[in-house]
């Protein structure tokens, strides 16, 4: 079972590495969003520092959204998804592996990039650190919930917009706890409760969402 999940992850990672441009594009999008906000709201450091957690978190959410439609679409188009559904393991495990792989190529780089973007907003070092960890812990939830959305909208016209409609409301807790953690540390409160809640939400999503995603995929394959 674990070997199967590992195969799925390794396969998705090696496929992702063959197309590095697709990996970098969402990161550039993240960078651009973060850079554009100061143009809109002015360069006062005090204001920017105040808004940074929210902006960076929403940016991470939107960048994740960019790479989600392709989570299953390519495999659906060339018949690989069908073969996965016929593998002697539950499809939920394959979806789980794919969600993990998605997080490794999307959430992890976003987390690594976020402290650098935080510098643009003049965040203090401890806030940068909390920002990094909050995105690191929170993005698995986005990959998990995103897997459901991607499964439900697979092969539909306008699936990108639909995906965001379906997925964004469900991601509100991650956004609140994630940006809240950064906010907390800047106002001098301990970010720990936020981290616990965020970790709980992420764990729940990444464990349960793939099964819902698998149910959605089975419908799409019928």
């Amino acid at each position, binding site marked *: 079972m674990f070997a199967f999940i590992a195969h799925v992850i390794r*396969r998705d990672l090696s*496929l992702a590495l*063959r197309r590095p441009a697709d990996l970098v594009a969402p990161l550039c999008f993240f960078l651009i969003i973060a850079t554009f906000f100061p143009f809109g709201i002015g360069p006062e450091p005090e204001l920017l520092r105040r808004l940074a957690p929210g902006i960076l978190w929403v940016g991470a959410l939107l960048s994740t959204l960019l790479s989600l439609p392709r989570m299953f679409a390519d495999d659906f188009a*060339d*018949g690989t998804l*069908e*073969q996965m559904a*016929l593998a002697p393991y539950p499809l939920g495990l394959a979806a789980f592996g794919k969600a993990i792989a998605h997080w490794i190529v999307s959430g992890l780089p976003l987390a690594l990039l976020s402290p650098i973007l935080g510098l643009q907003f003049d965040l203090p070092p401890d806030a940068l650190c909390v920002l990094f960890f909050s995105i690191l812990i929170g993005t698995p939830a986005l990959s998990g919930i995103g897997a459901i959305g991607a499964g439900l909208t697979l092969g539909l016209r306008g699936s990108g917009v639909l995906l965001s409609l379906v997925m964004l409301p469900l991601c509100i807790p991650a956004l609140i706890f994630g940006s809240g953690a950064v906010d907390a540390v800047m106002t001098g409160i301990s970010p720990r409760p936020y981290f616990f809640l965020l970790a709980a939400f992420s764990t729940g999503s990444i464990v349960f969402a793939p099964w819902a995603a698998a149910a959605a995929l089975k419908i799409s*394959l019928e």
Partner: protein
Amino acid sequence: MLEALQIECQRGDQRLFQGLNFCLNAGELLFLQGNNGAGKTSLLRMLCGLSEPVSGEIRWRGENIRRMNERFRGELCYLGHQNAIKEDLTPLENLMVSTRLHDETLDEDAALKALVEVGLSGRAELACRYLSQGQKRRVALARFAQEKRPLWILDEPFVALDTQATRWLSQVIGAHVERGGLVVLTSHQAIDIPAGRIHPLFLG
């Protein structure tokens, strides 16, 4: 071994067929024929468990495949319309990945041998997007060179293959049936499979 009982199939509003029955035993081949749109692919997908018949049931070793799930899929090998190969990977990688996903072990030497068998010698390390349609089909078929699972379900396996590859595939299928395997396949061409009992079935 593989039984279909009173299968009914609908696509949209249209009823494609109903009351379809057959029973396929070890060492037999079901040759499914019919016009375009008669429901051949739909039937194959039902036999795999990818979709559900509107009514009726499909049994494997006397048990409903819906209930067997993974146990059934562990004995099944399906080749769809699409080749299920990745353009970015090489034939060798594709073969390794697809066998692993199906929980089989295939070492690299055996994989290379299988690729040579399907006539892809010297192409094993080339990304699949540089291959022709027929060669891609061969990559997908290479899995069957070593495949030991009892039930093969093949959707148009001969499409895009040249005479040489067609002959090779016929032999592989024949050998499988000879060993006591079961094959369900569709084809618009006449098939020339050297061994076993062939049951033709016309749809539509």
